[in-house]
């Protein structure tokens, strides 16, 4: 169970980028975090993980998050990661092993086999010796997911994993994420494409700096909640929902 209590993030000391958000995710789920641009979705995740200064607390299975940090995986927006860094695909994936390693423990042959298995699962094994800068956006995202795979975290935070990636990569990643959920993990995903929300997520957290709604997708993915979050620029056609820019 993930319990987020009163998370507030203030950037300039005056206004809140995330304002007193609290919610609870009771069972292993694929959770979509929705909200308009500037709603504070990524900031909220960083605030929850204390990657940036924030107020409030978060508990995972009743333990403060700080005490279970090794069970947490976080994948930042891929645009924030240095694509040009001299690191190969297999090395990048192997970073996922670090939380389980002791300070001076080396990566063993068995570990490298795990890396290969993870890369095979995201269909990236043939690229293992390439530098990450040689990959497409979708391939790089798959590598980051492979890294999460071997990290064996119970609580996974992904920030906009589907931005700028191809359909094949999106499908492969979703299959891995369904697998995570079936293994009892909770996956929190910052997402902006409303058209696939019902297909992808079991639960939703909708925010616009403050919490708008939280719960099962079928209950909270409603026109009313979306209008509260996105304003009247939201259009609803049957079961399809789209967000238009505010003009």
């Amino acid at each position, binding site marked *: 169970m993930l319990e987020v209590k009163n998370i507030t993030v203030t950037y*300039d000391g005056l206004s809140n980028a995330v304002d007193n958000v609290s919610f609870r995710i009771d069972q292993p789920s694929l959770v979509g975090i929705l909200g308009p641009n500037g709603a504070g979705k990524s900031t909220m995740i*960083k605030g929850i*993980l204390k*990657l940036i200064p924030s107020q409030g607390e978060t508990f995972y299975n009743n333990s403060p998050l*700080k005490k279970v*940090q*090794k069970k*947490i*995986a*976080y*994948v*930042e927006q891929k645009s*924030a*990661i*240095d694509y040009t*860094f*001299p*690191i*190969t695909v297999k*090395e*990048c994936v192997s*970073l996922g092993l*670090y*939380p389980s*390693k002791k*300070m*001076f423990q080396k990566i063993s042959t068995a570990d490298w086999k795990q890396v290969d298995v993870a890369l095979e699962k995201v269909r990236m094994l043939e690229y293992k010796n*390439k*530098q990450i*800068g040689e990959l497409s956006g979708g391939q790089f995202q798959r590598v980051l997911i492979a890294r999460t795979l071997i*990290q064996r*975290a119970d609580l996974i*935070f992904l920030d906009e994993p589907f931005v700028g990636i191809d359909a094949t990569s999106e499908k492969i990643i979703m299959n891995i994420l369904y697998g995570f959920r079936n293994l009892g993990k909770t996956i929190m995903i910052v997402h902006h494409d409303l058209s696939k929300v019902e297909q992808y997520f079991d639960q939703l957290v909708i925010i616009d700096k403050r919490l708008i709604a939280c719960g099962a997708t079928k209950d909270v993915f409603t026109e009313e909640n979306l209008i509260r979050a996105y304003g009247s620029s939201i259009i609803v056609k049957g079961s399809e929902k789209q967000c238009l820019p505010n003009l």
Partner: protein
Amino acid sequence: MFTKFIDGLIEYHFLQNALVTATVIGIVSGAVGCFIILRGMSLMGDAISHAVLPGVAVSYILGMNFFIGAIAFGLLASIIITFISNNSTIKNDTAIGITFSSFLALGVILIGVANSSTDLFHILFGNVLAVQDFDKWLTIGISVLVLAIIAIFFKQLLITSFDPMMAKAFGMNVNAYHYLLMILLTLVSVTAMQSVGTILIVAMLITPAATAYLYTKRLSSMILLSSLLGGATSVIGLFIGYSFNIAAGSSIVITSAIVFLISFFISPKQQILRKKVLSV
């Protein structure tokens, strides 16, 4: 010319000291420089190398070894820069600019106040030909220590350089590794001061690393190549400096820059020349 250099090496102890010191500094600067450029901290390298100047002056005033004062001031500059960046809306490069220029100015004033025999010109631009035995051994000792720390903490430095947010999320103390790197940078800056001086240290740190970056796709290979280039350009630069009676520090830096320039056009990553040829 080459024979004259070899003869000089056999005959003069000061040239032997210069060769060993310059090579060791080239190697260690090349290694630390890789982390500096990959973390986008080239300006920080410049700042710390300038910031050690008042430390050197204070050491002379207090009669201490100049390493102690230089390291203290280098770290102080790094702490001030990080504090300003983290606790205000002022951008990092602005914080660096303010800090390093102030420290440099303070250093010049303190050296004047100290009225010591220290030659400001040699501190600013180095004089590797004047390196004494003690300084040589100190340089070797510190360089071995720095390289050992990089080897021991390689995976931690790798992950905190590549994806610090991921590292922080699973509980790694990212700030501790930042300051560890600042300590290493300060140590290298102080040792390199003898070779190229505080003004040109940044070139020793970033030019071989930037050249190595153009050829490699793994951090470990980049560090090895950068160290090799740092050592080799130091030897070549010293040879040119000695042969043509020009400042050895500047000659080392120019040699390194020429290697970078050639690599910029021919390295596989750049492929500028290849693209140009293909487009004709």
